[in-house]
């Protein structure tokens, strides 16, 4: 399977300064700072309840930190010209798919919502790359869990955002899908993209990567 990406992202930089995260009156993260450049992967580790998902949601702008700021190319994300989320694609625990719609419909709707309309051919091509050839116009409810996850991953490829934020992307995936995801991640890094992910299992990914462990100091 080839994952040759057609886009190479220009050099970007994500910077996080003095982040303080509180969840339900409990201080989860104190004074966190890091920066990420194109082609880098950051793995967020930590025990359950250490604030991994909270951190990812803040990086997406879905939640607000108590203090601190997240900057994209040196400008706080709230003041980005294109909007606070135009640089990122987020894949959470849920696949964000509509059961009644086909894979192709799901992908085209989501891409349009994210500001990048794609044609039928492009959606089919990406679904094919994800190993879903022949299932493009089947309602998603007839797909297996692994196949649904592949459709959700195809969305990441279609919206073409430089920063991917993935919450437990490897959870409950079979070996084949892990392989598909791994090569998609490697292709994204090779295209100068950035990835921030949480995972419990070690998956060997080629490329520059670092690990951020939460909850050590607490």
């Amino acid at each position: 399977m080839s994952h040759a990406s057609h886009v190479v992202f220009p050099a970007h930089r994500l910077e996080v300064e003095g982040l303080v995260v509180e969840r339900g009156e409990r201080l989860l993260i104190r004074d966190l700072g890091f920066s990420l450049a194109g082609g880098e992967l950051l793995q967020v580790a930590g025990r359950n309840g250490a604030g991994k998902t909270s951190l990812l949601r803040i990086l997406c702008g879905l939640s607000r930190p108590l203090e601190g700021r997240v900057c994209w190319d040196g400008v706080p994300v709230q003041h980005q010209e294109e909007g606070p989320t135009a640089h990122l694609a987020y894949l959470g625990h849920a696949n964000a798919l509509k059961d009644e719609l086909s894979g192709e419909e799901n992908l085209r709707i989501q891409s349009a919502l994210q500001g990048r309309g794609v044609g039928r051919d492009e959606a089919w091509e990406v679904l094919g790359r994800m190993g879903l050839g022949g299932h493009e116009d089947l309602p998603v409810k007839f797909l297996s869990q692994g196949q649904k996850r592949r459709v959700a991953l195809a969305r990441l490829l279609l919206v073409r955002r430089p920063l991917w934020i993935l919450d437990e992307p490897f959870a409950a995936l079979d070996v084949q899908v892990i392989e598909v995801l791994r090569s998609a991640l490697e292709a994204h890094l090779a295209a100068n993209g950035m990835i921030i992910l949480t995972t419990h299992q070690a998956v060997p990914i080629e490329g520059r990567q670092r690990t951020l462990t939460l909850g050590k100091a607490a």
Partner: protein
Amino acid sequence: MNGLATALITLLRRDLILALRRRQDALVVLGFFVVVVSLFPLGVGPDPQLLRSMAPGVLWVSALLATMLSLERLFSDDFRDGSLEQILLSPQPLSLLVGSKILAHWLITGLPLVLISPLLGMQLGLDGTEILILMTALLLGTPILSLVGAIGAALTLGLRGGGVLISLLILPLYVPALVLGAGAVDAVMYGSSAQAHLSLMAALLILTLLLAPWAIAAALRIMLD
């Protein structure tokens, strides 16, 4: 077409397609409206004069209750499957995207109520002019029900027993629409003009149209935080 228009039309189309593939949701609302209105003659007796004078109130209260029935699912399906997060992450303004969803909700649940109301009006003995005013009032009023109801749906997102909470939160806010809507039909029934009621209803619609999407967007951001 620019990105905003594409996103708004896409979201509207998506909700309409989903409603078409899950027809029972919309039909339940319509069926509920018809059944509740039809129960009144059985309950209060077949006196045509009594039914006629009760008709405006009966039709409007039934429309409110039927709308309530559809509100819980307005955002909760998107919330459960993660689509709502993706909508929040869209670079387009959330209040406009929310407006698109509400337009879809009105087309699916509000408009059918308007369209079937003449039949029920006739059943309760309303005459031609009264039915025309009833339809106009519902045409202006049902979008208000969708808009205000969506605030309640957003505020109770993810809470247990959300459906009951929505009713408690929202039914009091439906009072102005109910008073104006039923009042419009009453007015023509007793020989005066419905214009004042309908003008006020239109003003209320414009006000809700301006404020509700903004409030809904804020509520969704808080509930998803």
